[in-house]
């Protein structure tokens, strides 16, 4: 089980801010594949990975990152702070 959190338009497209996901994926890319296969709203959110960023336990990561030991994965668009 892993916590998956969404922000900004990713959250809006998927329709929820956070969920617990039962997954056998070992990488972020694997998790995205599983989610995309679930429902259209996930497929829509993950359609263009170049428009997405990922954080693993609140540190920026990449789609290649391993999920080993990770408790929380976050998906969001490029940040626009400041």
């Amino acid at each position: 089980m892993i916590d998956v959190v969404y922000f900004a338009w990713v959250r809006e497209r998927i329709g929820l801010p956070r969920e617990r996901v039962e997954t056998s994926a070992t990488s972020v890319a694997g998790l995205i594949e599983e989610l995309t296969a679930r429902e259209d709203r996930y497929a829509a959110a993950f359609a263009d990975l170049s428009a997405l960023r990922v954080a693993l336990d609140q540190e920026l990561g990449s789609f290649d990152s391993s999920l080993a030991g990770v408790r929380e994965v976050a998906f969001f668009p490029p940040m626009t702070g400041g």
Partner: protein
Amino acid sequence: MTVRVETQPFDIGAETNAFAAACDGAGAIVTFTGIVRDVSGGLIAMEIEHYPGMTERALTAIRDEAVTRWSLGGALIIHRYGRLAPGEQIMMVATAAPHRADAFAAAEFLMDFLKSRAPFWKKEITAVGATWVDSKRSDEDALQRWQGADSSKG
């Protein structure tokens, strides 16, 4: 060496004075304040979303990196989230250093990293709808000037 993430408005002047008073011995203080701009003329509000937990972590890391790169007498980051009206302050950074070059460089460094590496997202609310603000290529490019110079003193 403060990092604050909060919803309520802050007083730029009061924050600047408090920062200056806390930075005893500094010769140069630079502040930057970002303000909600109504670029197209129809902005009702700006909504800022952030990632609680990661935000504080990211801001602290950025602040620590600035303190490592330059000899700072102080560094402050305040960033608001929630619903802001046009003209309200979004955020501010302040840096104190013995010399002006370090204070300026550190403040610009903080801003460049805040823009693209701190987990905030802005949404503009107008009468015709709401739009997530796109990240700017120029902001991503601005980060490049700090690469490969980790040990440089500005």
